């Protein structure tokens, strides 16, 4: 399956042209995609924050930010700058080391997970074999950071928020992993690239959402719960807990939490689009269009074109899901903690288990449709 752009190869060849060894070329190459993805993630957060402000305004029949740039597009940058220059306060009775380490532990695993998000056949940082499993493992580190900051703040609201966050994250990780497992079962691989390629056969018809409708819904609910978005934002429920584990934080440390939660939201949306909505695939296969127009699929300009379509499609699908998440946030009430745990353990867990079993059965019965 070696087709599409391979930027790394071309870049290395280009540097070798200057007489550099392949090792040096590799070292120069390595930080580039990482930086690019980091910038993409931060820009994605800015866009999401703006969307959140505008859509919430529309949902509440307000205008929303208007004066900072056209339609208020510069508002998120102003927010970020404000947080950047704010005084960094560590409460006198807080535990300084843990208080500082907490937000870092929350943010770093989320950013690391971008390692496996593909925007095209070769457009990802690293096609690691354990792919999607890496994301599940990394996202399980986050509750430690939340517990740490909740404890270190030395504040009852913070501690309760941290404990709630950990309980919620542990409860929803299991149905999440089980619904991913059903996809992996159909793909015969953990790699995100293989998962997308498995759905690329017949355009929109071969997307996993048709074969895994239950898994799609379970995954989306669990992803929202893992991101602590309303209706599942109990850890920071402002009416009950002030702001949960974030109560004592200010300035850049608070910004790390803020950034972490939005990067996590975008990441979850991207992963839903990769797992269930065909990733970078166009609703009609690009190869089919190229054949229809009598264009050679391997020509350089076609490859650049398909790669850009791939990036646009991935981002478009992800932002469609972000839009749904924002609408949900501004239109639904919060669930109670007992309802949250009931939903996780008594409803989603059995359903995702049954979904996994049925998928395995269907795979045996119809290997051509469910990945033999």
């Amino acid at each position: 399956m070696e087709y599409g752009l391979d930027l790394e190869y071309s870049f290395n060849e280009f540097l070798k042209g200057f007489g550099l060894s392949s090792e040096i070329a590799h070292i120069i190459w390595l930080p580039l995609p990482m930086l690019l993805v980091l910038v993409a993630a931060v820009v994605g957060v800015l866009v999401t924050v703006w969307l959140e402000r505008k859509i919430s305004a529309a949902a509440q029949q307000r205008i929303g930010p208007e004066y900072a740039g056209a339609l208020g597009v510069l508002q998120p940058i102003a927010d970020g700058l404000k947080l950047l220059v704010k005084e960094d306060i560590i409460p006198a009775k807080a535990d300084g080391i843990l208080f500082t380490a907490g937000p870092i532990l929350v943010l770093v695993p989320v950013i690391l997970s971008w390692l496996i998000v593909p925007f095209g056949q070769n457009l990802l940082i690293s096609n690691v074999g354990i792919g999607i499993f890496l994301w599940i493992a990394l996202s399980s580190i986050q509750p430690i950071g939340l517990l740490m900051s909740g404890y270190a703040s030395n504040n009852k609201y913070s501690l309760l928020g941290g404990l709630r966050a950990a309980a919620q994250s542990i409860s929803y990780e299991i149905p999440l992993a089980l619904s991913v497992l059903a996809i992996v079962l159909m793909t015969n691989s953990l790699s995100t690239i293989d998962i997308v390629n498995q759905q690329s056969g017949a355009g929109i018809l071969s997307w996993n959402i048709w074969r895994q409708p239950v898994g799609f819904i379970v995954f989306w609910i669990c992803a929202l719960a893992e991101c602590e978005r309303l209706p599942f934002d109990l850890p920071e429920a402002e009416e009950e807990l002030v702001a949960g584990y974030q109560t004592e934080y200010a300035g850049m440390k608070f910004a790390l939490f803020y950034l972490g939660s939005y990067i996590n939201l975008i990441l979850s949306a991207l992963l839903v689009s990769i797992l269930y909505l065909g990733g970078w695939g166009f609703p009609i296969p690009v190869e089919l269009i190229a054949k229809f127009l009598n264009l050679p699929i391997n020509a350089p300009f076609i490859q650049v074109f398909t790669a850009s379509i791939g990036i646009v499609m991935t981002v478009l699908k992800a932002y469609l899901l972000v839009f749904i998440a924002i609408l949900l946030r501004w239109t639904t009430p919060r669930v109670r903690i007992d309802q949250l745990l009931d939903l996780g353990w008594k409803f989603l867990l059995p359903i995702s288990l049954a979904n996994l079993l049925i998928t395995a059965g269907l795979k045996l019965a119809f290997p051509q449709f469910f990945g033999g």
Partner: protein
Amino acid sequence: MSIAITTQIICFIVLSLIVLVGALGVVLLESIVYSAFLLGGVFMSVAGLYLLLNASFVAAAQVLVYVGAVNVLIIFAIMLVNKKEDLKPINDIKSRRIISTLICVTLLSLLIRVDLTNVWNLASPQNSIGEESTIRIGEHLFSDYLLPFEVASVLLLMAMIGAIVLARRDVMTKDISTGLPVDQELIEKSSEPLLTNKN
């Protein structure tokens, strides 16, 4: 020496140092919360060592199970039952510490001896399977290692039943271990404030 090998050696030294210092910290630190968080750090660095050995699946499983589940639950439990208790001073603390140190050093020397005398059957780097190891692990778990794998799940089931028994003491009138009648009110009310007073 190539750049890749140098990087590997540096990573190995850093990770091993974190494991050693962190593990010592887990044992020696006074604060139980610090010990628990350091334990998480130790688990993470062990996962890093697995990554250096090309066992990426084992590394991710280590993070998921030990950091994401075991360590989170340990911290969770510590924070839920974090009562400030004045422990009684122990008279012969010094002799106890000496004895436990002796036992630990003996165990360590035994392990070192096993490590040095045993001939390890190491696969050469050319024969390592790398990414394919995920499939191999799966095959082994469902064939020759099926019984140990299933027995481990029975262990987890027992732990779960134990937890349910502890949590639902109201269905029993007598304490299992002591035989005394169970204090029914204890389950409902939290007598101590949740957070400890920090010094």
